[in-house]
């Protein structure tokens, strides 16, 4: 199956970031599942290896699961990217509400 160019870039970036995360596929999948992902562990693994495509939303949820992990361990080198649609929308959000909610992360008290 041929992936679109953007999809493939997103996947390659994901694969690269995953290497920084010190996370097994099982753990990644659990995080992805916990925040609402619907693809199975086998599909996620196949996606990471470029064997199958995932819908844009599932790719973004997976990227987000990885990024939350990277945030937790304060990984320095960038984050997994999101699909094009959400990047554009994300910029819109940024312009619209710069000071909406601005609490520091530490207050969440969700250390685990």
């Amino acid at each position, binding site marked *: 199956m041929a992936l679109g160019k953007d999809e493939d870039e997103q996947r390659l970036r994901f694969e690269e970031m995953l290497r920084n995360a010190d996370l097994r596929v*099982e753990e990644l*999948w*659990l995080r992805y*599942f*916990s*925040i*609402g992902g619907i693809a*199975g*562990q*086998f599909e996620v693994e196949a996606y990471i290896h470029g064997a199958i495509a995932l819908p844009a*939303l599932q790719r*973004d*949820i997976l990227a*987000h699961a990885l*990024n*939350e992990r990277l*945030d937790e361990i304060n990984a320095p080198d960038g984050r997994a990217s*999101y699909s094009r*649609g*959400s990047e554009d*929308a*994300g910029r819109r*959000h*940024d312009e619209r*509400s710069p000071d*909406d*909610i*601005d*609490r520091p*992360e530490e207050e*969440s008290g*969700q250390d685990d």
Partner: protein
Amino acid sequence: MVVKLPLADELAAIFARASELLLTDETVSRALELITAAAEAAVPGVAGAGVTLIDAEGRKHTASASNTLVELADSRQYNLGQGPCLLAWAGGEPVLVSDVRNDRRWPEWARAATELGLRSSVSAPLLAGESALGAVKLYARNENSFSSGTVRLLELFAAQATIFLINAQARESARTISEDLRDALAHREIIAVAKGILMARHGLDEDTAMQDLLMESRRAKRSLRDISAELVSSTQLPR
């Protein structure tokens, strides 16, 4: 005996159990009884056969025995902490005792076995991957009752019993839903409710609501869970 499964397998096991694809405990104990009976019938001149199960904490019990003599010989092993079945389980290899009176490996159990009128035995471990779940054994009243052929036969019965036991373990794991699964489902639920709130509040479809949650999490640099929990509590009117 609880096997830790990866979550996806765990979910699959729960559904398999719900659809009655996994065997019940009753079915498994019936299977062990049948295997015990078959082992006894397959070898001429045995005094009895049985299955010992040993859990992760080392607790031992005889899950199936063809008669009380087997139960007694087993319980002597458990009480003394020595004997051929315990060695088979610990070593992962079959153990053949040609004559207990000449066997120096377990002097106390040998005395107990002799008192019960037993002279020889063969035990094969129940091997599941890296771990051993117990042992299948045959006892006989005469010395030299068993050959290497009996050992091989008993190993086959042991392999058969193990299949049933692994199946029962999967069922047990599925019954006690692990903390991971409970947390993951609770986590998902909060996000699903938050998604629903955005859908109703802004007239969005589900995917767009999820994309909005993701964006808010990125923008605010807070976890998706925190963003969602806040949305969920925001619907409550002050009393």
